[in-house]
């Protein structure tokens, strides 16, 4: 019963906090550029504004186009629901699995690309092709990270990996460090952040993710934006849960433990949001084809993490 309650709280927590995190990233960037910037609550207002607006759908759009935002949002939300944030004691924790996570996010991406192609505009196709290009390297990298983690922890369940890390079995492992590096790079690519994509650009020709959703408006766009914000928070939560799970509450934690878990998670995620803002202010966007080098690097790191494990075992 408590697990169900925590599950429900968690489910709304991720959606509820996602715009805030996006707001923090934007505010950080604005401040670093010497601008005053919008308040961290601005993304909530944007979503509310979009929800109230009429949705304009292109004449050439099929049912696919209308349905995709719901499917995408649900897939991302579901993925976020399974990922522990403040406690591992949730009804869906046993179902959580890193491979399932990759699959859910891939489903969301698949529908985004289809929706981009559906309207038949040049930009939708351009964005879809670029997104799939990015995904074709990012997904293997993500899976390799999963693989090397599961080799250490003997599980693909994030909660179990978190407990494993908390249990002090890990120590300072090279493989973990490499896997973390790879995961961060994948996260940057998957969320369309600089240097892979620029979420704030108005230049149609340079867009990746935005190009696919260019035709969306109103509540459809609100759902897609919310899905994007949730995905950002999800990736941060994944990194927190797998690599920095300290403070995470478990089944036997009392209310105090839960509160600690909540604030620890929130604190870590906020630090990451500020860090992302800082990173994005220091670097320009890459050429599209350099993305392969970047993600190839991520894949290589993840592979090295795996290889080191075997080498360590052999020695």
């Amino acid at each position, binding site marked *: 019963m408590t697990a169900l309650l925590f599950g429900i709280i968690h489910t709304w927590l991720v959606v509820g906090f996602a715009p805030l995190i996006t707001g923090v990233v934007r505010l950080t960037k604005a401040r670093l*550029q010497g601008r005053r910037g919008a308040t961290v609550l601005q993304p909530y207002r944007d979503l509310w504004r979009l929800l109230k607006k009429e949705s304009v759908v292109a004449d050439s759009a099929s049912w696919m186009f209308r349905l995709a935002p719901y499917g995408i949002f649900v897939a991302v939300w579901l993925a976020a629901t399974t990922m522990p944030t403040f406690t591992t004691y949730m009804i869906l924790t046993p179902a959580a699995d890193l491979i399932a996570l990759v699959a859910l996010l891939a489903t969301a991406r698949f529908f985004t690309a289809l929706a981009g192609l559906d309207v038949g505009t040049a930009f939708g*196709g351009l964005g879809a092709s670029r997104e799939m290009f990015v995904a074709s390297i990012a997904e293997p990298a993500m899976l390799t990270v999963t693989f090397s983690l599961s080799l250490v922890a003997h599980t693909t369940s994030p909660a179990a990996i978190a407990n494993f890390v908390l249990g002090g079995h890990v120590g300072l492992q090279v493989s973990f460090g490499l896997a973390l590096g790879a995961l961060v790079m994948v996260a940057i690519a998957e969320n369309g952040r600089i240097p892979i994509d620029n979420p704030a650009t108005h*230049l149609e020709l340079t867009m990746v993710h935005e190009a696919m959703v260019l035709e969306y408006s109103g509540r459809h766009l609100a759902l897609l934006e919310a899905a994007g914000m949730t995905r950002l928070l999800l990736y941060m939560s994944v990194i927190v849960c797998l690599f920095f799970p300290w403070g995470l509450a478990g089944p036997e934690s009392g209310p105090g433990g839960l509160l600690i878990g909540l604030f620890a998670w929130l604190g870590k995620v906020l630090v990451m949001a500020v860090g992302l803002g800082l990173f994005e202010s220091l*670097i*320009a966007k*890459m050429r599209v*084809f350099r993305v392969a080098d970047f993600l190839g690097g991520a894949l290589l790191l993840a592979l090295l993490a795996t290889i080191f494990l075997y080498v360590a075992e052999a020695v």
Partner: protein
Amino acid sequence: MLGNMTLMEFLGGGRAVPGHRPWPRVQLDERGWRELLHQMAISEWTLLGLWGEGKEIHVALRDDADGSIGVASLHCPDRRFPSLSEVRPGAIRLERAIRDLHGLIPEGLADLRPWLDHGRWPLAVPLAGLRGAVPQASPDYSFLPVEGESLHQIPVGPVHAGVIEPGHFRFTCAGETVVRLEERLGYTHKGVESLMAGRPVAEAARLAGRISGDSTVAYAIAFARAVEAATGAEAAPRADWLRALFAELERIANHLLDIGAIANDAAFGFLLARCMVLREQILSFNETYFGHRLLMDRVIPGGVAVDLTREATSVLRTLIHDLRKGFKKLVAIYDDLPSLQDRTVGTGIVHGSLAYRFGAGGFVGRASSHGGDARKVPGYPPYDDLEFAVPVRPDGDVNARVWLRIEEVQASFGLLEQIIETIPGGHLHRPVPTRGGEGMSLVESFRGEILMWVRLSEVGKVVRCHPRDPSWFQWPLLEAAIEGNIVADFPLCNKSFNCSYSGADL
């Protein structure tokens, strides 16, 4: 037959038209015109402008060997003239525009599609003076065909996602690589030339300052100088210096914005934010001491409308000092950021030969080793008394254009310092005599040289005015620059050119 001769020797063979200042204008017959084409093919004469007037066609040329300038005119009673497009490709769009506006047919022009006329005008050939001419251009426009396997087209614009001027870009791509870009402009056509006709000089001067808003000072100076040339007047000496002061402030402000915007197009927003802060300091200064942020209508025929007060001088001195310091830091950031350099170096290369063939001026030409600056050649006061370098680079890529702008900003700081130290006293303005005549001027805007040609009537009204924006010869090079690059690099290339839509759409 004819050997290689200078422009002046050639024009000496025509019938000189009196009252054209400061450079000569000669009337050619059709045979003379064909000889001109022949000479242009074998000589290094730069096409400065080509425009129609009734049944007449004028061409302005500069002999790069000695810097002499002249205008040749051809009367074409049957509304046909031999095209210059084969010897000077920069003439293609000008001739297409002449055909749309004046109904003069360029014989030998391969591309006879309309340019400015999008088939939406209520009357055809508006400047031809024909009553009741029925519009013929259709709204359909056929882009040049591109053939090849698995090519796809990307239409962009005329409405863009950002707040910029309208223009249509038709990309043909193989995957991400651009095979061909074709521009279609003319969306901001507002009939400047017919609006100019019949207006008193003072009114026309205001209009000239609004042809391309970001170069308002340069346009106003160009118009004022053309009017002064036509009437044989001279601006007050102090006014010349103040004009240069305004022009350099405008140049710095525009370059600052563009340098930042180029970085922003590579998703490095920091530089744009900081450049905007510097630019704002200039605009605020303009507002406070000259009464207009962009200095519109501060330059008038005969002189200038505002003075540089003693207080403004000392504020400006401090401002230049601060700007220099702030700009130096930003340049260091640009220079030290590998991720940004990676985007700009080697991107959008314009070959020097192409810049030369199109006669591109400004930083676009100078970044591709095609030198030339109207402040030096032909030169106009007070620049003859000032010391400044005109940077030229050979690389022709986005990085070269950024650096060229950086160096120009630094040169302009130096110019401003010299101007406030040595500016002479005296009147701001001298009345322009009411007199007829023809005048022409070349003024360096931040984009390159603006050509302004006016004919005034005896009562001091504009009969014909033709402004030629530097972008006419730069837009075609953008098509060449992007070829072989990837689509996603177009915004960078485009911003590094930053051609004027309004100025070229007339």
